[in-house]
């Protein structure tokens, strides 16, 4: 079937269970589509054709034996930040352009234990640092909705591949908005769960206290299937939460009537394009029609989020990226003269400009004499932002805002101005600082480019977020649109 990719995960599972089609057919149709389309998109760094076909065959066998797993035979893609045993795992960097991981991340193992077929590893901003996928060593990714436009980042490859129908869903990570912002720019549903919901073991670290794995899918329902497979306590990650994982799929149909949305006045006093405001106002109206209440809330410290983030994230990254020194794995410069030369040239040649910029910022922020003024102060302010949210959640269930300040922009538009680029994440960063779950889903378009709306909920309330997005999607059709790839 030419249009397998348009089926939801639920429909795919039904088709597989009822033997309407096999996982092999499904997988081959995706692989063919990747061959046909991805030249224009560049969403994959590695396509795992043979492995995918092999696991599709195993899935089909399990269906025949009646021992099918929850996501058996569903072809997905992993962001190339998740270590996969025996597979190139680059993190979008020259530094790891030759790194074949000796082990698999917990996320990869969880999907494999659920029977998913892995089509490949997706493109991303180098070490997840970027909002446009332009920092990747493996080339920029085109937004399927318009060529030469960015898909967002850092999970740009995952977003573009799902948006272009090259995978049923994709894993992604979100440190400051890297799932939600590309979801908005590519017309997808993207959820970043509560910090600790998804194991970080084997997920290559950018900023450890902010990084969280999640998913990019066409719909909230698809996201519920993926997130269910992905989540859970992991003894290998000390920051993993030891709590039960709700059945997101089952709970998604529960009523949303009577839930309350808070509109932070700080966000709504910002100067945003008319079409962004309009789409947000219409989303609010849709929710009101569904019986959701709306009120204003105050997040007095929210405007500190961006500066806090750009101290803490670089500080943590400066240490996390020290291991890339040319000694044990990854890129190594040619013929180092001595140890210092090995370190300096390996890191000079192996890292791209944005990564180096953040390592420098972080190293500075942690240096003797500056630590108190930057890192320590940022940590204290981070607490204030988290407290703002806790206070707000005493009276409302969600904080609603645009996901990104605008639609996708053209390639190269913001590369010369890092601060402009950093502003892409102004609405998404606060949830990372507070460790809260957030979701973005399509709520409109402008000149053919998608717009997204974001909801943030209190800790461990992913189920509520998925429900809100699901009901919204039952009453709108923004999420059903497919781009015409030129």
């Amino acid at each position: 079937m030419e249009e397998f990719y348009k089926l939801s995960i639920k429909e795919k599972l039904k088709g597989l269970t009822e033997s309407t089609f096999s996982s092999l057919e499904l997988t081959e149709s995706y692989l063919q589509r990747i061959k046909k389309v991805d030249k224009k998109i560049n969403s994959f760094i590695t396509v795992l054709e043979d492995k995918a076909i092999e696991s599709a065959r195993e899935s089909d066998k399990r269906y025949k034996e009646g021992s099918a797993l929850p996501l058996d035979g569903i072809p997905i893609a992993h962001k190339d930040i998740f270590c996969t045993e025996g597979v190139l795992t680059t993190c979008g960097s020259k530094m790891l352009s030759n790194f074949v991981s000796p082990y698999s991340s917990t996320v990869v193992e969880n999907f494999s234990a659920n029977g998913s077929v892995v089509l490949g590893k997706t493109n991303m901003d180098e070490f997840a640092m970027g909002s446009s996928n332009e920092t990747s060593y493996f080339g920029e990714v085109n937004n399927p909705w318009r060529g030469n436009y960015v898909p967002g980042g850092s999970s740009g490859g995952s977003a573009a591949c799902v948006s272009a129908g090259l995978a049923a869903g994709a894993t992604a990570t979100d440190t400051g908005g890297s799932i939600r912002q590309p979801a908005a720019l590519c017309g997808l549903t993207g959820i970043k769960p509560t910090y600790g919901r998804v194991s970080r073991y084997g997920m290559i670290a950018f900023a450890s206290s902010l990084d969280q794995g999640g998913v990019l899918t066409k719909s909230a329902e698809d996201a519920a299937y993926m997130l269910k497979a992905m989540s859970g306590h992991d003894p290998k990650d000390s920051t993993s939460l030891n709590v039960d994982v709700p059945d997101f799929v089952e709970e998604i149909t529960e009523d949303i009537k009577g839930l309350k949305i808070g509109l932070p006045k700080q966000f709504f006093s910002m100067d945003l394009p008319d079409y962004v405001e309009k789409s947000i106002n219409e989303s609010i109206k849709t929710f009101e029609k569904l019986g959701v209440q709306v009120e204003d809330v105050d997040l007095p410290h929210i405007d500190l989020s961006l500066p806090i983030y750009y101290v803490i994230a670089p500080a943590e990254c400066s240490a996390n990226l020290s291991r890339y020194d040319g000694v044990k794995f990854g890129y190594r410069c040619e013929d180092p003269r001595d140890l210092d030369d090995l370190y300096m040239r390996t890191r000079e040649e192996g890292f791209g400009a944005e990564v180096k910029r953040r390592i420098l910022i972080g190293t500075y922020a942690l240096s003797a004499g500056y630590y108190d003024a930057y890192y320590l102060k940022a940590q204290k302010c981070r607490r204030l932002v988290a407290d703002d949210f806790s206070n707000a959640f005493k009276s409302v269930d969600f904080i609603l805002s645009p996901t990104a300040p605008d639609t996708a922009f053209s390639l190269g538009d913001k590369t010369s101005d890092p601060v402009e680029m950093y502003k892409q994440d102004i609405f998404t960063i606060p949830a990372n600082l507070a460790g809260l779950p957030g979701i973005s889903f399509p709520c409109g378009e402008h000149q053919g480019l998608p717009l997204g709306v974001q909801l943030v909920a209190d800790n461990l309330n992913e189920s509520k977020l998925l429900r809100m997005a699901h009901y919204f999607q039952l009453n709108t059709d923004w999420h059903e649109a497919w781009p015409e790839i030129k």
Partner: protein
Amino acid sequence: MSNWEAVIGLEVHVQLATKSKIFSGASTLFGSPPNTQACNIDLGMPGVLPVLNKEVLKMAIKFGLAINASINSPTQFARKNYFYPDLPKGYQISQLDSPIVEGGFLQIEIEGERPKKIGITRAHLEEDAGKSLHENFENHSGIDLNRAGTPLLEIVSEPELSTSEEAVSYLKKIHSIIRHLEISDGNMAEGSMRCDANVSVRKKGSDELGTRTETKNVNSFRFVEKAINHEIKRQIKILESGEKITQETRLYDSQLDETRSMRSKEFANDYRYFPEPDLLPVVLDKKFIESVKNEMPELSEDKKNRLITEYKLSDYDAEVLSVDPNLSKYFEEVVINSSNPKLAANWVMGDLSAFLNKDNLSILDTRVDATNLGTLLARIEDSTISGKIAKEVFEEMWLSQKGPDQIIEEKGLKQVTDSSEIEKVIDKVLEKNSSQLEQYKSGKEKLFGFFVGQVMKESKGKANPEQVNKLLKDKLKE
């Protein structure tokens, strides 16, 4: 020298005797082929995360309680950042703020001086690095990461030590504590206990501290003493010539018996410590600390006091025996069979220790077990043999590993206590040495000892010496 005084502080790194590493499940066994005991976590592979080994918390808490320190809760890990090939992640997981142990002390004793209290600022947990191998690699260095991730407890003293002798005494005390607590084997040759010495000198009576140097990685008591002495002399010489001490890190060369500069302060690392985001602060509740306390063996200080009150041992004997938990255990087993603790202490510290030293054995490998030594001493006490014969029996026990009674029996070493038997020997001796007898009788009473010796010789040492004395005196009066 007399115008100057030294101020010394020690940083002691103790390898904790856990089966697996501090943040991974890999084994900590010493001496395996390079890089066979380093898992993905120890290698710092992309994406790996540390998980704290609970056992190290217990060990650190035991140490903290033993030195009267407070246990911080929550205790926090931090990243210490620096680049070195044997440091796989480019940072070491250590502790800065809220170390697990803070503010303790111990007491050192130097013969002829009053005991001195030495403050312990802190003891914190951290992971060890790997090893760089500079031999056998032409133009290259090898890296062995087996040791990477081995748990260390870094114990930092206050700068309250004044001489190398005090420093060694402090180190020996730490060594004794960690072995008593069974938290480390304390094997200095294998690097289980390593010491950095911070040394400065100042004019006697001055309140200000001089510029200090840090001498790294000294790995025996003797070298610590020598390195500190060398450093004190070197610094005094510099100061007396009117120059200044450079704050720097130095290395002790045991072959040349000197310290030399490794790096000066300008090249010192800025470690950029910050809280380790991969590990949450560890809460140690009172119940947990209490349960650890209940697991603790008797500490050497308590043991020493008990040996003094229970066995009426001298302060010195109790000190020597309590330093090594295995030695004091052996002593107490000897006393079960022998009713004379003082005699038992003398034998354990004297003959037994001498034989152990001669064969280079530890008390755990002794060739005469405590029960047999106790029986031997009981034979002295019940006058079956003399102390002198006992030494002979002991040697035979050591060599043949037979029991004392069997040896006494086989060799016919049983002491002669029958007066008529002894009198016969005395008569024989006096008859043989008639000229000496005459001299004695004419007033040369010093010859009494000569007669005793001859009687003992004639009886092959078996005659009971006290009886010999008494009977001989009676005879000579005749």
